[in-house]
């Protein structure tokens, strides 16, 4: 049997999912399950699976998360729903529950964080609330792993007995009741025909769902008018429009349920603690400095201390292995082309994948701590005003900052953004944040053209990248992403201590995800680049990099860069090599000039003027992200076309900016 796990954001859904599945993280390919939702076998319940759906507050078809949830439940008809609700915030959590009840699918309510409610001296009468809602209710604590076995047993029993929710009428009398009754009468046969709960169809008709659902019901014009008539009548009687009346009906029912079953304790300890923490973290003067301090610390630990240490360690091991294999192949007398494939193609590709891995793991450790403690919501709260002009919300801030370290984890981090639109836009903007792999390029060029002023050069480049990013965002906001952004009405959950298990599982998931999806792409790309570099145009293996196919392509496209002030084929070739990894730009230039990297500050002035050097730096700052980033973008955007648009778009922007800089610079001379 298949269960859908549904609940509000911040209700502890992921933690419950982890508790339900334990270590059985078998991820099945269920139809209708998007890339973002996970499915796993339930612990101790062989053959029963739970699908983790996005955290939502309502089943309206307005955000992609809501649509995913609705489509899964309506189209895939899970055998049961496990609805998780935060007992310490029960009113708003039950709002979604009522909508689930209308779907007429066996449902169990898991009341999470009951320990907190009890700890504050409150109680919830489980038997009474279960009766009033017409579904089984199980108190659990997902973090402490309490009540999980009971929940699994209840869910399986309920689904096996096809025990449908018994309460679907949330207003026993009044205008709204009459309206539901008359609409229900009209729609009954139609709903039955397409196999959808009548009560759900009624709600959708009252809401005026415009996602094509109403069309499927096949109502006649006459019937539609009849329905509209009774809705308008209800609106007049209630003095509220249909949507407000609907929300009011649900919340009134919930208030009644809570009055009968919930005994509120004293002001919750967690709330008081959160207020105290917030007094510091969202303090008028301290909030921004603290946020930047936190980011600097995470950055430093990830890219400076732990991550880079592990990266170096792993790439050293790979290098050791590579040289060992290299010697072995040499001694064996292997064909030099094959030997080169193994060492410069495969090992180099594996090496570059592996060097990203520690960064991802370490960074996601910190990010999931920030997310699970509730600090990320505060970051959005604090930063919102800054990003609003770009049509984004404060939530996009953190991924973009991570982009300064490496675009790969930054793009992966956009997964926490709840709106698809914001997510896409953030992914498109992240590559404008100059990543750390470009630093060697800046360093070499600064040394050659602006000795002693490298700090100024780098700062200007970073700011320039952000500036172009902001302009692009504003342009996108007016064109491709026109239309209403998803409303920024966001819960600020109480601060909580994150569950260690959830943090570790997320790290593991991200690492596995990256290896699985990016590995082949990166490896293939490295091998292609290797092939182009190792063979000449007659497909003879060549040790002379000047004769390689890569150089031939470089010569072919070099004219494209002539208007930017650097038409030399060696420069074009190094830029192509930079696609595999940005570090390769400098090393390729070193090889092609024949003098090596260390002599570049002497050889570069022969190839560039000061102006064309600046133009080149602007181009490298902005042109296509490396193959690892592109593979990640492809994975997150789930569209080849859009990914190609990102790559081409970045190159175009880079060309135009470099051209502008070169032209302006040449005029000033």
């Amino acid at each position: 049997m298949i269960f859908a796990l549904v609940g509000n954001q911040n209700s502890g859904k992921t933690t419950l999912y982890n508790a339900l599945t334990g270590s059985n993280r078998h991820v099945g390919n269920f139809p209708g399950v998007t890339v973002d939702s996970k499915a796993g076998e339930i612990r101790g319940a062989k053959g029963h699976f739970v699908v983790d759906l996005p955290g939502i507050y309502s089943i309206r078809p307005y955000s992609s998360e809501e649509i995913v949830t609705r489509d899964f439940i309506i189209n895939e008809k899970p055998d049961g729903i496990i609805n998780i609700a935060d007992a310490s915030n029960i009113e708003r959590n039950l709002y979604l529950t009522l909508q689930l009840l209308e779907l007429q699918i066996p449902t169990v309510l898991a009341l999470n964080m009951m320990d907190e409610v009890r700890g504050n001296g409150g109680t919830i009468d489980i038997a009474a609330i279960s009766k009033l809602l017409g579904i089984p209710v199980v108190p659990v604590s997902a973090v402490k792993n309490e009540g999980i076995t009971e929940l699994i047993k209840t869910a399986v029993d309920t689904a096996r007995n096809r025990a449908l929710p018994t309460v679907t009428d949330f207003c026993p009398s009044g205008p709204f009741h009459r309206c539901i009754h008359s609409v229900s009468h009209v729609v009954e046969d139609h709903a039955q025909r397409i196999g959808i709960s009548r009560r759900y169809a009624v709600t959708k008709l009252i809401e005026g769902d415009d996602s094509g659902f109403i069309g499927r019901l096949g109502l006649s014009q006459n019937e539609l008018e009849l329905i509209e008539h009774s809705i308008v009548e209800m609106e007049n009687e209630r003095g509220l429009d249909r949507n407000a009346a609907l929300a009011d009906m649900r919340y009134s029912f919930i208030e009644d349920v809570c009055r009968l079953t919930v005994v509120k304790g004293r002001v919750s300890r967690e709330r008081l603690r959160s207020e105290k923490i917030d007094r510091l973290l969202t303090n008028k003067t301290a909030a921004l400095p603290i946020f930047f301090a936190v980011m600097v610390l995470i950055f430093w630990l990830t890219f400076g201390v732990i991550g880079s240490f592990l990266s170096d360690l792993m790439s050293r091991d790979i290098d050791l292995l590579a040289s060992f294999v290299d010697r072995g192949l040499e001694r064996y007398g292997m064909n030099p082309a094959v030997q080169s494939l193994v060492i410069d193609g495969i090992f180099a590709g594996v090496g570059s994948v592996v060097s990203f891995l520690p960064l991802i793991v370490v960074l996601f450790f910190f990010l999931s701590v920030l997310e699970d403690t509730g600090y990320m919501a505060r970051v959005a709260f604090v930063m919102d005003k800054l990003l609003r002009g770009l049509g984004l919300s404060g939530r996009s801030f953190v991924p973009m900052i991570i982009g300064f370290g490496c675009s790969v984890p930054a793009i992966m981090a956009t997964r926490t953004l709840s709106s698809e639109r914001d997510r896409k836009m953030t992914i498109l903007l992240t590559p404008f944040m100059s990543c750390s792999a470009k630093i060697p390029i800046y360093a070499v060029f600064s040394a050659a053209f602006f000795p002693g002023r490298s700090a100024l050069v780098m700062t200007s480049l970073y700011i320039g990248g952000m500036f172009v990013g902001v302009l692009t965002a504003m342009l996108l906001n007016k064109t491709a992403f026109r239309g209403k952004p998803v409303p920024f009405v966001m819960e600020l959950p109480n601060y909580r201590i994150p569950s260690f298990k959830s943090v570790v599982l997320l790290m593991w998931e991200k690492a596995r995800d990256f290896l699985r999806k990016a590995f082949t792409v990166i490896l293939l790309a490295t091998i292609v680049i290797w092939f182009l570099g190792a063979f000449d145009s007659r497909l003879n293996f060549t040790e002379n990099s000047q004769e390689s196919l890569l150089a031939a392509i470089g010569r072919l496209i070099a004219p494209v860069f002539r208007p930017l002030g650097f038409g030399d084929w060696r420069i074009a070739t190094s830029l192509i090599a930079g696609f595999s990894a940005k570090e390769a730009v400098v090393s390729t230039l070193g090889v092609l000039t024949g003098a090596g990297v260390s002599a570049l500050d002497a050889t570069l002035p022969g190839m560039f003027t000061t102006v064309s050097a600046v133009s080149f730096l602007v181009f490298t700052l902005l042109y296509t992200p490396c193959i690892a980033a592109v593979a990640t973008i492809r994975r997150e955007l789930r569209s080849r076309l859009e990914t190609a648009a990102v790559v081409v778009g970045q190159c175009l922007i880079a060309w135009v900016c470099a051209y502008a800089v070169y032209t302006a610079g040449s005029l000033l001379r």
Partner: protein
Amino acid sequence: MTLDSMPIGKTAKIESVGGEGALRLRLLDMGLIPGTEVTVQKTAPLGDPLEISVRGYQLTIRKDDARLLSVREENK
């Protein structure tokens, strides 16, 4: 009076919810419906958005959106 002009720390009752489309539905879904009590907790360090408390939880809402909620201050 609208919610954005409420003084910090004061509680008010919602009289009507304006706006349209996804935003309005989101406000209603979050429990901001006529008759509900809301308390303004604080403003973000940059002056916007607001933090309000409603139905026992904390919500952040931009001032532009808060303007859509007309409220009447409660004298408590």
